């Protein structure tokens, strides 16, 4: 289980994460939602110890150190591969450093997405780069897979493929924390939704509980964020009012 207890993160005087307490048991697919700047990326980077924070984050009961960091993988829209290396060179690099790297999964996913094995990744399209980023996160052999906006820049067909692949290949003990703005698209693949607002968790619900309540994920998110559906018409009215004066 990945556990966060009272995690706080400040950037200067600005509080980016506020008292985050969250548990991610094995085998869950969790959607992490929130507006831009809500703290989704900061939360993931705190888990990976990419920056300092206060509070406690444990992985299967132990603090996250170099001894267990290989249990976590990370795919980011910023991309974390080596752009001058080919896909196969990445495979060799990962095999050398991550003992549980799954070559079988790598070959299958490379074939599925029809990606080139021997050309440097900088020559890939944005969509292909995203695909490769996700492939490496899925093949590392990690128990906890963090994905931060992995589909940014992919067309809808590509994304559909992603979702099918994710559902098809994840093992029952693999946990996926998926941060995205594509709420409706992922609502069918996640089992739980965590909502962040201004660095705080404002909602945490299973899709089962949502179904029982008869709400859609989008309804739940809008409600939790106190989204004012009339704000667009109000803004337009205000603008028109200004124009007529």
């Amino acid at each position, binding site marked *: 289980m990945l556990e966060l207890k009272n995690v706080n993160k400040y950037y200067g005087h600005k509080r980016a994460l506020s008292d985050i307490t969250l548990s991610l048991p094995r085998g869950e697919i969790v959607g992490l939602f929130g507006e831009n700047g809500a703290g989704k990326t900061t939360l993931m980077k705190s888990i*990976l110890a990419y920056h300092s924070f206060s509070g406690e984050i444990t992985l299967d009961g132990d603090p996250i150190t170099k001894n267990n960091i290989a249990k976590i993988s990370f795919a980011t829209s*910023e*991309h*974390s591969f*080596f*752009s001058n290396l080919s896909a196969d060179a990445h495979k060799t*690099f990962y095999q050398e*450093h*991550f003992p549980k790297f799954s070559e079988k999964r790598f070959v299958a996913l490379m074939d599925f997405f029809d990606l080139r094995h021997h050309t440097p990744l900088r020559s890939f399209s944005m969509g292909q780069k995203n695909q490769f980023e996700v492939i490496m996160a899925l093949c590392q052999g990690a128990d906890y897979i963090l994905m931060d906006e992995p589909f940014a820049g992919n067309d809808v067909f590509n994304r559909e493929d992603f979702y099918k692949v994710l559902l098809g290949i994840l093992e029952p003990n693999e946990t996926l924390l998926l941060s995205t703005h594509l709420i409706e698209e992922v609502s069918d693949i996640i089992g739980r939704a965590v909502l962040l607002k201004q660095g705080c968790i404002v909602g945490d619900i299973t899709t089962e509980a949502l179904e029982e309540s008869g709400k859609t994920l989008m309804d739940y998110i809008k409600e939790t964020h106190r989204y004012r559906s009339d704000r667009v018409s109000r803004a337009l009215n205000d603008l028109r009012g200004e124009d007529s004066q």
Partner: protein
Amino acid sequence: MRHTKPFLTEETKEHLRGYLSPPGMSLSSEAGLFATGIGAAFVYNLTYLSRYLEAYNALFETDTHTRVRVLRDGAVMPPFYTLFDNAWAGFLLLAVLVFVFVPFHYSFYHRETKSIYVMKRLPNRYLLPTQCLSFSVLCAIISLLCAAAVLLVSFLIYWLATPDACLSGGFFSQLFL
């Protein structure tokens, strides 16, 4: 035809490169800069030869009758260290300057993509510092070895080419004073 096994296989070279620089980074421009630095340091080292030749020529005088160059009476060669002076300064300076490659290597993990995220996630905690530091350390060691080599060669020139009568002290006292 007999095939000789190469000293370093491609696989070994790739493996070594993995310790010297970030994955996918070409070392050719840095190696070129370093080679230029070594060349410049060697050129600067020639100032020793110029000083030595000047001092060596001063040991002799030309006989006005026979027109033959003969050793002057009581001529003494200046001590080695005064002639050598700072002739190895180029190598010593280079051994320090090569550490500018360290931030250059580190910044490579932030170029185009954030491969630093993968490096920070590796179970091998030493690979990131190794890839940032080792090329500079290797260059610094080569520079210092070159400095030691030019010191030795310069001294051997001094010791072997100077007439025995003009040497003012023993081998080691000349070298280490």
